């Protein structure tokens, strides 16, 4: 992770992509979102969606996994260059999450993030709060996911 001071509003990154299989769609839905259109092809064919599609929570959770993996790759590159790596803190939450189109079996979603706002934390002087718009887009270029997240990012020592 870059330090809070090294991040700029407007910074963008593609964090990764994921192809959703029927097996994982059903496995996730069985555990967390057991609606017929996430569990069974025949039931999905008779639903509003028309075909088996992923739980919206599943689509969002893949954003999280790819964001963690993306940061891990960036941190490794930074360490290889001998640069310090900032800590990432917890997230207070998110807002304005929209499932814009269904994610069907076989769809590949490309996830991206863009920095919207940066402000120092009033209660934690070692940390700043980064707000970002996160998106998922399928292989046809249609948006499937959008939400606005916030997270604590470590500040550089001596610049607080």
């Amino acid at each position, binding site marked *: 992770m870059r330090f809070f001071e090294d991040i700029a509003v407007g910074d963008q990154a593609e964090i990764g992509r994921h192809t959703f299989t029927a097996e994982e769609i059903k496995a996730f839905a069985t*555990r*967390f*979102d*057991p*609606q017929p259109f996430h569990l069974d092809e025949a039931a999905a064919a008779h639903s*509003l969606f028309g075909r088996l599609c992923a*739980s*919206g*929570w599943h689509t*969002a*959770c*893949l954003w*999280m*996994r790819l964001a*963690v*993996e993306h940061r891990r790759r960036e941190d490794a590159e930074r360490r290889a260059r001998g640069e310090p790596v900032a*800590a*990432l*803190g*917890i*997230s*207070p*939450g*998110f*807002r*304005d*999450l*929209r*499932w814009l189109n269904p994610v069907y079996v076989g769809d590949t979603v490309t996830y991206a993030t863009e920095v919207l706002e940066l402000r120092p934390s009033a209660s934690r002087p070692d940390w700043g709060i980064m707000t970002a718009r996160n998106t998922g887009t399928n292989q046809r270029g249609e948006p499937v996911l959008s*939400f606005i997240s916030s997270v*604590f990012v470590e500040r550089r020592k001596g610049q607080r």
Partner: protein
Amino acid sequence: MPPRHWEDFIPGSVFESEPRRVTREEIVEFAAAYDPQPMHLDEEAARASMLGALAASGWHSCCLLMRLLSDGFIAQSHFMGAPGIEEVRWLKPLRPGESIRARATVLEMRPSRSRPELGFVKFLFELVDSSGACLMTLRVSPMFARRAAADASRDEVSG
């Protein structure tokens, strides 16, 4: 009790789920799959983090809330999903061994302008621990079938 329609979600109504205990194994398993940050996987790393001790991913809390609601009043209603989530706030960490419940409070209801067969219900959902403390809040407006529409489709089937 017959499944609830949109008309049955009166503002101020409160529904509570059964309690469910969350194990360390499922916290670590979820994190390994969807949020592999050391603070959700490893006790020592968690102690050094802002969480102070091992705690579930916030996305895991969202998914557990969804499941508790699915088994409870969603299964007993004409639920038609939600186009999104207005806001989620993670207020306190969910620790291993904690027993959680979901609480749903109806805030308001409004008919759909474009689709008269359904309506929106705005909820405050809370994930509550065994001491009654709120761990997370989620504000969302899912859709439910309206009674008139359901009666009409039943008439078509029987007629």
